[in-house]
C-alpha cells in the first residue's frame, strides 16, 4: 500500500482528503487505483487517457519525468505526490 498526496485544488474530488492509500506496483497502476476510488479525478488530471502535462508527479522526492515516467515503480512505503503549479501570491 502506497500513499498519494492530493494537491489542494483536487481535494474537492477526494471528499476533502489530503492523502489516499492505493495499491499498484507502478505510478500508472497506483493512479488507476486512485481513479477507481475517486472517479471524478480522472477527468481533471488526464487528457485522452494520459496524465496532463501540467501535473508534476513525484515518487518520494523524485520527479518521474527523470525516471521511468508512469512506469516508475512504486514501493509499499513510497509516497506519490501530485503537484500542479500554484499561481496565488499577491492579491
Amino acid at each position, binding site marked *: 500500500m502506497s500513499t498519494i*498526496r492530493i*494537491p*489542494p*485544488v*483536487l481535494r474537492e474530488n477526494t471528499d476533502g482528503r*489530503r492523502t489516499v492509500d492505493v495499491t499498484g506496483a507502478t505510478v500508472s497502476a497506483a493512479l488507476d487505483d486512485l481513479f477507481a476510488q475517486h472517479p471524478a479525478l480522472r477527468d*481533471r488530471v488526464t487528457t485522452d487517457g494520459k496524465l*496532463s*502535462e*501540467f*501535473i*508534476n508527479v*513525484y515518487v518520494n*522526492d*523524485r*520527479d518521474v*519525468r*527523470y525516471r521511468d515516467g508512469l512506469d516508475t515503480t512504486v514501493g509499499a512505503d513510497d509516497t506519490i*505526490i501530485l*503537484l*500542479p*503549479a*500554484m*499561481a*496565488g*501570491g*499577491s*492579491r
Partner: protein
Amino acid sequence: MTFREVNATEAVALAADGHRVIDVREQNEWDAGHVVGATLLPLADVAQRIAEVAPDKDAPLLLHCAVGGRSGRAAAWLSQMGYTNVVSMKAPIGDWKTAGGAWNEPQEPLLTPAQQRRYARQTLIPEIGQEGQRKLLDAKVLLIGAGALGSPSALYLSASGVGTIGLVDDDLVEESNLQRQVLHGADRLGMRKVDSGELTIRGLNPETVVVKHAERLDAGNVERLISGYDVIVDGTDNFDTRYVLNDAAVKLRKPVVHGSIYRWDGQITTFVPFEGPCYRCMYPTQPPDELAPACSVAGVLGVLPGVIGLLQSNEVFKLILGAGDTLAGRLLMFDAMGTSFDEVRIWRDPACPTCGEGSPYHEDPT
C-alpha cells in the same frame, strides 16, 4: 635574555629584512592607521595570545606601539618567556612613516555608529558580521507584488537592513487585503499599495531606499523593472506574469525567489539562472484556470503568506550573503493544516526552452 630597542629607521630596515611586526596598541588605534603587514596584539592580550601569534620563540619579532612604552614592556615579558629575537621600536609611530615605513591609512568604517547599533544582533552572527551587513545595506531587492507575499518580505528585509527595496504593484489597498497584507492598514484604504508600502517601510527603517514601480509587470516592462536589482522576489498572482518574469530573469541572470500560496498550502523555491532549474523546467505547461484559481477566488489563510513570505526573505538573505544552502533545485511545500513541510527535487531540464540546451540566453548579457 634581553631585548633590543631601536629607532624608527632601524625598525623599518628590520621589517624589510624579515622581522615580524607586532602592534601592541588597541583596536581603535589600529583602526586609525597601522603598519602594513603588522599583526594587532594589544598589550593586555600578549601573554594569552603570543603562543598562537608567534609559536616559534626564535623568530625575529619587531614590536611597536605609539611611542615605545607598551612595546618595551611587551618585549621584556617575551624575553622572560624565552623569546630570543625581540626588538622594540622606541620612537613615536609618526617616525615610522617619516622613515619611509609602509603604512595603511584608516579604512572607511563598514558601518556607521548608528548602523552598528541598529544591526548589532545581526552583526554578532559569524556568517554575517559587519561585512555581511554591508552587503545587505548595499543590496537591491525587487518585490513583485506588494500584497500578501510581498508584505512580510518588505517588513523584514527593510527592518534587517536591506538597503534598497523596489515595489512593483499597481493595485490600491482594499479592505479584503488587510487580513494578510500586513504592509498596509485600515487607514490606507484606497491608497496605492506602493505608497502605503513606502510609508510602512519608512516607519520601520528610515534608512531603507524605497523605489516605487506603480505598474503591472508584463513582457514590455519586465527587463527595465528587474535590471537594476540583485534579487527578485516573486509573489505574483498569475501564471502569465510568472513565466514572463522567469524568462527575463534567466536572460538577465537574476535570481528569483519564488513563492505561491493557496488556502492552507504554500510552495517556495529559488531559481538561480543556469545554475539550477528555472520555473519552466519545473512547470513546462501552465494548468487551466479551473485548476489554478487565484486567492481572490479560492481564499487563503491569513498567516500562510507570512510563513511563505518569510521563507522567501530567508532565501534573499542567503543569496545576498553568499552563505548557507538555498532552495535552488528543491521545492519546499508547506501544509498549514497538517503543520508539515515536504520537499521534492527539481531538475534543470535540458529541453527547457528558457534555460536548456537550446536556450537563446546562453550568452551572458554582461
